[in-house]
């Protein structure tokens, strides 16, 4: 699974840029499978991507276009997918998004994630073979949100602990 250390994230988007560049040869956050948010109101920056969650809500694809790879990554079959959007709605953290008729989700780059290589701060770690956490509690809260809103909600929640730590340090 992909793990993030928010304390080390500077919001530079090198992970996002590398992800898009090595998948498409271009740069655009719309085409990224890992998306960085800069929350200026709290100083929190962080990437959101598939964390190979316990529940794997996205696999409930009615067309069975999504399957699980050997490393726990999500594989999308573009020939089977009919862009119904069920996976996008199902993911609690906005890690799957359809843009211009393509489903974007982390594929772990065949086991050597480019985002991890690109991060000079060591903020993204690839814990190979490890099972991701449960997203059940988050799902209840983000059920009706757009992918962008889900990412915001999720990152805010992750950032709350770090904010507490900062405040304690400066109390």
């Amino acid at each position, binding site marked *: 699974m992909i793990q993030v250390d928010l304390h*080390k994230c*500077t*919001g530079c988007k090198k992970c996002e840029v590398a992800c898009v560049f090595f998948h498409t040869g271009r740069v655009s956050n719309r085409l990224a499978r890992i998306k960085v948010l800069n929350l*200026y109101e709290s100083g929190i*920056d962080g990437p959101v991507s598939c964390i190979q969650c316990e529940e794997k809500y996205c696999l409930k694809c009615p067309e069975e276009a999504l399957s699980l790879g050997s490393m726990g990554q999500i594989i999308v079959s573009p020939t089977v997918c009919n862009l119904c959007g069920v996976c996008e709605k199902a993911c609690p953290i906005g890690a799957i998004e359809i843009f211009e008729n393509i489903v974007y989700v982390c594929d772990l780059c065949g086991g050597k994630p480019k985002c991890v290589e690109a991060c000079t701060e060591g903020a993204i770690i690839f814990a190979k073979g490890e099972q991701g956490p449960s997203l059940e509690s988050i799902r209840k809260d983000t059920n009706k949100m757009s992918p962008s809103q889900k990412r915001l909600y999720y990152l805010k929640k992750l950032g709350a602990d770090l904010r507490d730590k900062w*405040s304690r340090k*400066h109390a």
Partner: protein
Amino acid sequence: MLEYGYGGRILRIDLTERTFRIEPLDSSWVKAVIGGRAANSKRLFEELDMNCDPLGPDNILIFGVGPLTGSFLTASAYYTVTAKSPLTGILGDSAAGGQFGAEMKLTGFDQIIITGKADRLLYLLVTDSGVKFVDCPEHKGKKIIETTVAIRKEQGDVAIQVAAIGSAGENCVAFAAVVSSGNRVNGRTGMGAVMGSKNLKALAVRGSKPVALADTLAFLAESRKIDQDILTHPEYKKRHNLGTTMLMKDLNSIGILPTNHFQEGVCAYVEEISGQKLASSFKVKNKSCFNCNVHCSRYYLANDQEAEGPEFETLCGFTSRIGNRSLPFALEMNAYLNQIGMDSISTSEVIGWIMECQEKGLIHPKDLDGLSISWGEEEKIRQVVDMIAFRQGIGDELAKGAKEFSGRFSDEAQKLVMHVKGLDIICGDPRGIKAYGLTYAIASRGADHLRAEPYFELTNRKEEAKKRFGTEKAADRLAEEGKAALVSYSEKIALLTDCLTMCKNIGLCMDILNLERVSSLLKAGTGLDYSPEYLSKILADAIDLDHAFNRRLGKTRKDDTLPDRFLKEPLTEGPTKGATVDIQKMVDEYYKIHLWEE
């Protein structure tokens, strides 16, 4: 047809009529200016009514990015805002990093050109397809981050990037800033006031046009070399940890840290206000611009405030320059100025100048609504800042800038304003860094180091100096010799960096960019043929154009100088003791190199 690198389009917005027009970017036009700052200057030169009121509807406000902005190139994050300056009356522009430039690039517009004046306060949402005009009377008086969060919420998209003004801009303070990415400031020359005069609270951008390259693999190869050069650079670790705040102790150690308004160059309490102190006591994490691996910015908590920064200029401006030894207070001011959108350099000059004039008995409290202020008086500094930003009482006059305000006082008081062409001098005493002195004197936006950033003179690379500039003296900070040649070289690389648009700390101070390297980056990025010789020529042309621009606005050779203090008063202490600047000698040489007439 521009297929690669460039967005290939420009967007024209008329605020009076609330209309917009999308035009193709002319490829031969842009090839002669590359992009970014030079393209903005050229556009302004071609389209501006030179006599227009900088705060009137005819002024043209341009947001510009370059062919490599938002690309795979490290630190390709910057954007430049350009207009006729309300502070100086000449060419005005200011660049900033953060995330705005890269997102603007994704809209596919290389320039956003804004004219007219809206009848009510509004913000603009620019996407690939054009502009949404959104009235926002409820955002009047809102701070930068509040405005950013509100716009993201209203539009339901947290990826929107916003460049906004605060109260200072709304109130047309002549040195008001545009601020993006929460704390990233286009501080100089009053671009925030131009926005305010147009009733434009914010420019929000959200794009979806990918940045494509002509030769992806060649671009990747060159970018990887650049990344290696950055990561193995001898200054990398220090820059990563401290960013530009490393300069507090560095400049103090060579006796040029402005102290008590440039009366001294050594600050006795530098340890208390240093970048190192900031990092150990207040910083909670590093922050970064788009796609950068230096991560030189910082996030901190202090005095019940939190913010990103400060950069060296703000830190020095609100500590030693105005005699304040409290670091938490400077950090509070950084957060506050960023949120009300006011340039910290010009603000600290107004304050420092008043302090010195009052110390010398040149300005009476009755000339300032009874205000009497001395070095480091925190509460009074807060008070003056608010008087300016909200134009209360005499603050209404101070808001026109130190030089303009000084006109009502004696010659002696006027001479103490540390400015060139009306723009307040940055924090670096030119008596001990001669190439910087020359840069302040000749820079086309007034006293400014970024036009050339001749950091080379501080690197002690004597052999390299001889090779590049014909004399070892080019690497001797106290010598005037060789500095015109150094500045004439580094102003090109500075401009080139601004055109791409990349970060100058990396491109120039870390000596990462040169003409050959940029030539291959541009070729791989855009598919257009930019040879090093061609680049050198068009950069020289662009510098000539800036010069012509200001000539047309009434500036002459005699404006290319420094405040008297730096020419006549030697510093009295430290490693720069006894030094003054022979500015005319350097300017003469500089003019000769440029073949400019008197």
